[in-house]
């Protein structure tokens, strides 16, 4: 069974954020994720979108969050750090396979 059938497809935004989490692990949090995406793609996401996307990904079980240590430059506030889960990893793989299949130029002969 495809992992999408239960939790739905990855949106473009979710895909970007998931990949950013992969790069930043284990210290991925909203600010660093936004920076990562902006520095790599030039796309400056809205802050709110990042929070909402993370919340959705967490609900789907693709990421898990944990509190980091409070730091002085954050006014003594803790970070909420995100890590990829196993199903998150599968979701990325499945999404990329699906995209690759769609991009293939020769038509698929029905083999099933």
């Amino acid at each position, binding site marked *: 069974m495809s992992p999408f059938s239960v939790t739905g497809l990855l949106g473009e935004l979710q895909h970007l954020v998931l990949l950013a989490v992969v790069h930043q692990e284990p210290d991925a949090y909203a600010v660093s994720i936004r920076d990562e995406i902006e520095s790599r793609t030039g796309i400056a996401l809205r802050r*709110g979108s990042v*929070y909402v996307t993370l919340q959705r990904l967490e609900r789907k079980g693709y990421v898990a969050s944990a509190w980091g240590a409070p730091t002085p430059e*954050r*006014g003594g*506030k803790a970070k909420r750090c995100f890590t990829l889960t196993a199903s998150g990893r599968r979701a990325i793989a499945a999404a990329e396979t699906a995209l690759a299949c769609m991009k293939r130029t020769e038509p698929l002969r029905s083999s099933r």
Partner: protein
Amino acid sequence: MRAARWLVRRAAPPEWRESIAGDLEEERMRRQATGRRAGELWALAAALGSVGELWLESWRGDTMRGNFGAIFGGLLSDLRVAVRSLCWSPGFTFAALAVLTIGIGAATAMFAIVHAIVLRPLPFDEPERLVAIGEVHHRLAAPGLSNLGSVAAPNFYDWQEALTNVDLAASTSATGFTIRDGDQPEELRALRATASLFEVLRVRPILGRTFTTEHEVQGNDRVAVISDGFWRRQFGGDARVIGRTLHVDSGTWEVIGVLPAGFAYPFGVEQPPDLFVPYVPNETARSRTASRNYNLRVVGRLRSGASVAQLDSEIRSVTAAVARAFPEWFADRSPGVLSLHEATVGRVRGRLFLLLGAVGFVLLIACVNLANLMLARATTRARESQIRAALGASRWRIARGVLAESVVLVLAGTAGGVVLAAWGLRALGSMLPATLPRVAAIQIDAGVLATAAVVALIVAIVAGLGPAHRASARETRLAVDAGGRSGIGRPRRTVGAVLVVAEVALAVVPLVGAGLFTASFRHVTNVDLGLDYRNVLTVSVAPRLTATGGDVQEPGLAGAQAIDDALTRLRMLPGVEAVAALSGGVPFSGSWNSSALTVGGTTFDDPDDRVQLRSVTPDYAKVIRTEVHRGRYVSEADVAGAPAVVILNEEAVRRFFGEQDPVGAVVQLRDAPRIVVGVVGDVRVRGPEEPVSPEAYIPWAQMPSASASVLIRTADDPTRLARDVSRIVLDVAPGVPVVPRTLESLVQRMVAPRELNMLLTSLFGVLAVAIATVGIHGVMAYTVAQQQQEIGVRIALGASPGNIMRMVLGRATLLVGAGLVLGGVGASVLAGSIRAFLFEVQPHDPAVFASVGIVIAVTGLAAAWIPARWAARVDPIVAMQRS
């Protein structure tokens, strides 16, 4: 940064709060380090951006998770719980439902009336292109006034030929028409119209065809298009009606078409026409001879692209050219154009909007009251909310419970309100004057229902939001420890007090309106009309519709023998005290003949000075009970060959003779010189609100007329005699249409609009006060219940029941007093706007304001009396044990 922090703290979901605050702080430091602006505004915008989307997300959360069943399941269970909990508190539910049903019912009924009469477009194709054209008398012309007068035939034909912006049609006012197909002659209303009427209004017959210009020729004009109502009544809806003939004693008319059921024209007439026949004026009517007869109602359809303003300027220039050739035709009047909609509803719109405004106040009070009731309930259920919150229910979850109750209440209340409105409209239907345009079209249709639904939604939100907010507020959660004792603190009582003050203030306004309209009505009905209109039956004999389309020259009642016969036989009916014949217009019927009067070489031809001319038989003074002040009245000796005489009223004497004694003077009236032989008292023949006109009475025998009325004074209810009277008149003048009416009904018709204003505003005022009373009672009872311990302590410390009652009533007095002051100020501001609808009463009439104050104060204190008694009877021991 403070505001941003506050926002995050208040509004971000708890699991995000700290990290978002930290993220913001970190970003701010970074920006500052790179020298970019990171001030208060930046922080606030950033915080709003972060929190805002999370908010939206939580809002659509359920939907995004894609489980509609869960949402609606949740909603349904909310509603189910709401219904169940409402059933547990029948007192609250009954009060809330009663208030809502009354408020929404009254508003829906009134809106249905306004919708049908004013708001809905006229029932024609492209109704916005229809215009009404009339001649406006200069004395009646006022800006914004929509009284277009009738049009003289020559003007109509000139306009029809010259105007390029419009297609015109004309019709006369409906005339009586008697058909004799069975034994009983049936009285019908026939409208003579130009063939273009059907094209202008774009009405297609459902059967047959309409008449055309070919029929507008004498001899070719005996065709009739009948109304749907008449077709069903007379012919049972038989499709073979086309080609059948209608037998009238003056000839036969062929039915050529049947109009569709919805067709209604003209508007605002007591009896819609049964048949339409071609209007064929004779040559004299078309030419500009000396006599000017204004008898046509003109309607037009603008050609595409033309506007009312263009037509207005065109008709003015066309008319100016005519006026140069025939100045006397336009000496005292000019043409006027209005959209047909405006001409139809313009004169009633203000009054109806006023009533809609009054009902708006009732609805507002109902809203405030519901909010108040719900608030009291939310507070008493604070513990339930606390427990639910403690068990993990979110604020939204708890608020939803309260909103669901308000939705259930409003749904039930709206259903009840619509039923009440339907019932009320049926009861009201007979009360509405038939002259109100489109009154038959009043119904509760989809538009009205949709409006009621929108109103209900607003009520549910307005009334439910405050309580929902309060139920879920943090303070109630903090009150858990207080044992429910102080869960209801000052804030709640203050809000309740404010709402009571608002209700009282809102009730003052419609009640003041009711008072002012009642005073106006009383003044109108107390006007001395100069005659005794009770127990008088009038039977009007209208001129017959003849084959030539013109008015009859046949004698009708005009023959001396006919009138004598009729009067003698009528006098012999049981209970008849006096009988007279009259021509020239029954008082209050709205029609009269007028003539210029010449005395001592001066002719008074100003429209204001023209005298109303009536020819009467000698007993007329006895029938209407007017007094002869000087000289004598018409007598049996004033026959056709005898010296021509006239009797004037006091007003005519005042105007034309001043201090001189008119008896014996000679005046010239229309036909011939006449000797003034007497003076009678003034009769306000045009109605109580119109000025007295100069009048002249001429002996019937010296000026008989085919168009006449018989007046009969009876000892008791004159309608008993209506059948006998009609039979006698028909015997004497066969085939003429007779219309029996009481003089009293004519007077009533004149004051009907005022009566309606009075009745409806009084009804709304009473409803407003009733709802406000429920509100006062509720809040006081609630306060007493909450203060039970305090009262118990007071009594234990020696307060007498009298002290306690004074305490409660004192508080009620304060609230009602504050409401009265506020409402009084509001009402006096609004009263100015209804000045135009009042009659001999000032908008700030102190008596009206004072009585409203007394009524509200008394009912308000009476409402507080019962809770005050409860308070006085509190048993201190029981009250203390509760804690």
